């Protein structure tokens, strides 16, 4: 499936200088994790992670990050398709727009979201006035904040997959009489499945770790909007042990999910 890689194997390992740099990069990621494991109060681990606060924060995190990933799929896939395949002149500006939330410090993103979707926001004020629905300080607000920061990762990943697609397959299907919807569903989607899965994974991981936009837009209330990253932040100021243990729990859960999905989601490994 992956010829350059096989060739590399046949010729022996990576050039040594590259191997050295790769080693440094891997150690750079590994050592902070080692630090957490090193400092973790293992004797009290079970007591700490089975506490009510951790459980409620964790279940809230999992629900909200999953919902944010689904929203990213529902709205992000059409957006990515438009960016990659559409003819509109707006596409370049649109791509910049989608990339901006990745650059924006999430805390600022949260303030910007308040200005738009808050009680006095451009959209939030009329919605609050007519329907009596306000998003800040609610679970829906958490999902929205996480979607705001996670969806760009999904869109850009999937757009990359769509752009590297050979347009002739879709063209062939179309000349055989398939409608645009059918071409998209039966030809395009299966061909971009790998980037679709990768996009979902990064978006989910980003949503799970989201902190700044959530605490600014959705607030920080235990059981309602306090997700794991927020619980870790609060714990850091009261009980650093609990913070370390909660972070490890989050890392272990994410690692398990990535490990279980490795066959289907990273076919080349």
């Amino acid at each position: 499936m992956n010829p350059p890689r096989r060739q590399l194997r046949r010729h022996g390992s990576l050039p040594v200088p590259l191997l050295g740099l790769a080693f440094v990069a891997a150690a750079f990621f590994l050592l902070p994790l080692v630090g957490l494991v090193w400092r973790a109060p293992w004797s009290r681990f079970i007591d700490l992670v089975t506490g009510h606060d951790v459980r409620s924060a964790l279940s809230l995190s999992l629900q909200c990050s999953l919902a944010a990933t689904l929203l990213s799929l529902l709205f992000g896939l059409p957006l990515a398709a438009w960016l990659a395949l559409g003819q509109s002149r707006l596409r370049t500006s649109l791509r910049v727009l989608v990339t901006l939330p990745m650059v924006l410090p999430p805390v600022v993103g949260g303030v910007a979201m308040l200005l738009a979707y808050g009680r006095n926001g451009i959209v939030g004020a009329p919605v609050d006035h007519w329907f009596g629905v306000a998003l800040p300080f609610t679970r829906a607000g958490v999902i929205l904040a996480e979607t705001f920061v996670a969806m760009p990762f999904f869109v850009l990943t999937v757009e990359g997959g769509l752009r590297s697609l050979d347009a002739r397959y879709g063209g062939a299907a179309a000349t055989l009489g398939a409608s645009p919807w059918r071409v998209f569903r039966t030809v395009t989607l299966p061909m971009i499945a790998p980037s679709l899965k990768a996009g979902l994974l990064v978006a989910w991981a980003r949503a799970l770790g989201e902190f700044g936009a959530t605490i600014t837009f959705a607030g920080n209330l235990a059981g309602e909007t306090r997700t794991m990253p927020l619980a870790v932040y609060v714990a850091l100021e009261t009980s650093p042990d609990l913070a370390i243990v909660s972070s490890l729990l989050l890392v272990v859960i994410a690692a398990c999910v990535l490990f279980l999905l490795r066959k289907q989601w990273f076919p080349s490994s």
Partner: protein
Amino acid sequence: MKRPPSYLLWFVLAAVSACSDGERERRGLLERQSVLVFAAASLTACFQALAKDFEALHPDSKIDLHFAGTPQLVLQVREGAPVDVFASADEANMRRVIENAKVVGRASVFARNRLTIVVAKGNPKAVRGLADLARADLRVVLCGPEVPAGRYARQALEKAGVVVRSLSDEPSVQAVVNKLRLGEVDAGLVYVTDWASAQEDLDAVAVAGEHNVTAAYPIVSLGAGENRTGAALFVDFVLSSAGQALLQRYGFSSP
């Protein structure tokens, strides 16, 4: 697996020696008489002014300021930040620093602060005191109980016998002020000094004297820093009459 080639080891050694170069560079910076001051977030504006006045008095010195929520500063001090002076928003966090870090001299209280209710300009929801914060039609936020301002707020509410449902445990007084500025909530409890720097946008409703809580701000010089002379000079300046006058201009009261 193939044995890693031997020059990987040199690579690691080179990386390690680069670290000690960084150490030398850091000492070089400190020789320029800079004093690293960690101060509670609620001290931001007045400590910036204090540092400016101090540098004018001692032209060979430089004050480096770092502001954050007090608990976060405590964590950074404990993890070995090379801090010369630490100014806390409460005495509990000062005790945690004294227990966990080397302290030079004794901590002394240099300022006091009180709580106030903040509301939108013109007080549209007609808030008259702490008791009103329990009203169902009012959206209220407080700082989290881990932040000094949040703990003081809960103490005041308890004294007044008022039970408030805070919509969110905000991470700092600034976050509470911002939620009010954006019109996201109707009322919050912050320090008088926070309102003093936001009074163009917000109105204050006084907390009754018998329910109010006095926050004491202690300051201390730390042994972790390498500029003890500069640290002592700065602490003396904050406690001096010039320093006290400046603190009062920012709404703090004298110890």
